[in-house]
């Protein structure tokens, strides 16, 4: 008698195949894009030998350099501001105890997530246009302000989650042992909160770095960030140089996400006592 395959109650027909297809489909385009960034020639389909020429070109491209620096500066400042603000807000929102205006505050913090980016972009364009003509300032400040605002909910979520998972009696114990409110925060709350703050900062940084729509509308002429530079290239002048830049950004995201994954694994272990 032929050996029978045991019946797997978890199995559903075709699901594994579709899942496999999805995983392949998710990675195929970006993997191919990365591969062709190493293409020696100008063509985007014909493989003309392995070469780093496009990376070199991108590296020496002054416009790319400026755009990268701008992206990093904006992301760095926006991360610091939004994470700081989000930590203060998370501490203020408290855990469990409700207060008047709490739901309104939640709605305000999450507002950037609920409004489509194009609407926010347009609204900022409109307001900043008026401000620009009134006070004449035309620097990075608008972009930094805009990025700080929409990064707040991204920084807020991990911090709040970490805060809620924290044992409340620890802070009571510290107060019981003569720690003032500031000392409780500095010696107990913040050290235990730190992994959440770190996670929030990473989220905020990536979100700011990746932003296209809002930056495109708010920026003044010549104020390209890396994504808006790429957007411009895609409309006009497509070379594998764009592939190269895209691949670099891709690798950066992957590294960051994997790092975030391992950080949150560790914080899970530490919070249990």
């Amino acid at each position, binding site marked *: 008698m032929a050996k029978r395959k045991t019946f797997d109650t*978890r199995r559903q027909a075709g699901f594994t195949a579709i899942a496999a297809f999805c995983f392949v489909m998710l990675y195929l385009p970006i993997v191919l894009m990365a591969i062709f960034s190493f293409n020696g020639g100008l063509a985007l389909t014909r493989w003309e030998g392995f070469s780093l020429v496009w990376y070199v070109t991108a590296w020496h491209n002054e416009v790319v350099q400026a755009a990268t620096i701008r992206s990093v500066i904006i992301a760095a400042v926006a991360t610091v501001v939004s994470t700081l603000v989000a930590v203060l807000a998370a501490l203020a929102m408290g855990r469990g105890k409700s*207060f008047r205006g709490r739901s309104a505050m939640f709605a305000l913090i999450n507002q950037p997530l609920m409004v489509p980016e194009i609407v*926010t972009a347009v609204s900022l364009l409109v307001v900043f246009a008026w401000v620009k003509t009134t006070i004449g300032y035309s620097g990075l400040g608008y972009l930094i302000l805009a990025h700080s*605002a929409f990064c707040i909910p991204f920084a807020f979520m991990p911090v709040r989650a970490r805060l809620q998972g924290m044992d409340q009696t620890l802070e009571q114990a510290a107060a019981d042992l003569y720690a003032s409110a500031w000392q409780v925060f500095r010696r107990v709350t913040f050290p235990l909160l730190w992994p959440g703050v770190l996670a929030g900062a990473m989220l905020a940084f990536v979100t700011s770095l990746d932003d296209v729509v809002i930056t495109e509308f708010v920026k003044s002429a010549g104020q390209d960030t890396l994504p808006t530079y790429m957007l411009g290239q895609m409309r006009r002048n497509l070379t594998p140089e764009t592939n190269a830049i895209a691949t670099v950004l891709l690798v950066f995201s992957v590294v960051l996400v994997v790092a975030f994954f391992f950080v949150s694994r560790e914080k899970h272990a530490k919070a249990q006592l």
Partner: protein
Amino acid sequence: MAVTQPNTDLVIANRRETRNRWLLLLPSIVILLAAAVGPLIVVVIYSFLTAGDYGGVVWHFSWDGWLGVFTTSDPFDGTLSLANAHISILWRSVKLSFLTTLFCLILGFPTAYFIATRPVTQRDGWMLLITIPFWTNLLIRTFAIMGLIRNEGLANGLLEWLGIIDHPIQMMFTDFAILLGMVYVYLPLMVLPLYASMERLNFSLIDAAYDLYATPFRVLRRVIVPAVKPGVVAGSILVFVPSLGAYVIPRILGGGTQLMLGNLIELQFGQARNWPLGAALSLTLLVMVTVALIVYVRASANEGD
């Protein structure tokens, strides 16, 4: 003997706590009002003003912005007629968003189920694989799709090389391209909440159903799907809402011909120089998104779990 004098220390402590709380919240309130909520209010105001000749607005009340959403007026005699172009753009946005959600559901449901049925130690790893594309820049992913479907792109190149076609199939700048791009970009957004629901699925229910003579398909339809309905709803909203407001994807993959609502809005602030119309269109999009969100809140409230 009950002597209940109000404890003034308690009152003072409570007041101080409230004051401190709002002090901590002040920075976020300021930033969000200045750069998130406040500008929206300005948009509302602008939608009721008159368009300036070179962009911008003239501070003169007008209904033109709102009227322009659905109607055009004949330049000669001012009669209003339906703005067919706008209607078709709105319809395309809704249609494509809906299709995107549907395809994401068809593809994402088995994927989430697959991950949820892996051994516990593996699941984080699989989810990491889903999360990585999710955090990759939208532009990069759209660019990658473009690399695939362009006339000089990889798909056409492969087909030509295999001899299946003589000249490239036009895939760019079509509705298909936009749909493909959106499904590709938003698929992880469907898988994540679906997985969250499925992870909490009580698999012994499936065993019980089999014990009671159910077929695999019946198990899917009568046990699994109802149990993960919150995930389905959440995933659908998470895909539908950004699809409605998509801008980058239709811009790159649809070119200047296949416009979605986001592109139409941008046009008003660019070449068309009609800021009030752009403002009105933005608010229209916002209303559509809000309606979808309300539907979601209602649907998940009815779950009662």
